[in-house]
């Protein structure tokens, strides 16, 4: 009777929600940090493990559980190098073991690339007012156009104003490309890998991710500070530690 009950409970909780894959031979219990406060633990294949929690359901509502997924991943990252999983990767224990064994060589290569390194996401934005002022004072054509328009009524200079705006925007784009490639190249030189992503807003100059050796994190920080001093009047710079989604892309469930 007892064994029947256990089997029934096990089959109801047959799904394993996956947060990350880590390089570890040792079983690890992360505590009740999972979705629905479930216990988070490891399922192993040789020296690689999936970090999971049990569940009676295969799908989860991202609106309810998105934050918990990320918070659990951040806690795991504090102790291990991770191949992070995007939200919603849930399957059976058998499928996870099959996935780990089938992809073992590939996962090992990923860990060779990731172990001892951190992904740092850098976002650089214009201090837009300062930059526009600077463009106006340094570009002769723009300065001349501005003088022609100044003091004249809006309705009579509408076209000129639009042309002026277009010129300012063009100059901004030109500077953006130059500055972005320079910052990217300089930080890229002290990184193991780097990736430039699409800017998220008009005022963004650079949105990039750098894979940095932990022994070089201080150098990276110093260089960002140097760049901030060089471009401080024009630009705002901010970088954060993030799971290395930019440098590995693994899904257990397709």
């Amino acid at each position, binding site marked *: 009777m007892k064994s029947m009950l256990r089997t029934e409970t096990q089959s109801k909780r047959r799904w394993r929600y996956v947060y990350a894959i880590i390089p570890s031979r040792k079983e690890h219990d992360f505590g009740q940090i999972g979705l629905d406060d479930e216990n988070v633990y490891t399922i192993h294949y040789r020296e690689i493990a999936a970090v999971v929690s049990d569940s009676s359901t295969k799908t989860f509502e991202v609106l309810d559980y*998105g934050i918990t997924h990320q918070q659990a991943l951040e806690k795991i990252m504090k102790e291990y190098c991770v191949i992070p999983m995007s939200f919603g990767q849930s399957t059976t224990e058998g499928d996870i073991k099959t996935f780990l064994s089938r992809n073992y060589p590939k996962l090992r290569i990923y860990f060779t690339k990731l172990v001892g390194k951190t992904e740092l996401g850098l976002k650089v934005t214009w201090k837009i007012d300062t930059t526009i002022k600077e463009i106006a004072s340094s570009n002769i054509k723009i300065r001349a156009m501005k003088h022609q328009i*100044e003091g004249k009524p809006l309705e009579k200079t509408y076209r000129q104003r639009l042309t002026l705006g277009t010129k300012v925007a063009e100059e901004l784009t030109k500077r953006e490309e130059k500055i972005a490639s320079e910052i990217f190249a300089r930080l890229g030189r002290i990184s193991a890998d780097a990736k430039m992503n699409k800017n998220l807003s*008009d005022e963004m100059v650079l949105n990039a991710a750098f894979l940095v050796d932990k022994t070089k994190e201080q150098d990276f920080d110093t260089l960002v500070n140097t760049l901030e001093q060089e471009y401080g009047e024009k630009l705002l710079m901010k970088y954060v530690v993030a799971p290395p989604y930019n440098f590995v892309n693994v899904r257990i469930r397709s």
Partner: protein
Amino acid sequence: MALIVDDLLRLPVDLGMKVLQAIADDADAMTLKTERAVREQVLKTQMQFERGDLPEEEYRATMSQLRKRLDEVKGV
């Protein structure tokens, strides 16, 4: 005087941005009319948050708005 110069220079840029914003708002309103469209936006927001492109506070605010929008399109 400096203020007038700045305003003059900003005007076309601001105007351009306002027009673009209005177009974007319209597009948002158009595209978020179906459950599928809202769901796609939810997943996009989650991905941005996971990759560190979106701070937690902004993520929570966006998801809260999307939840409301989802209820609206589902007629809840």
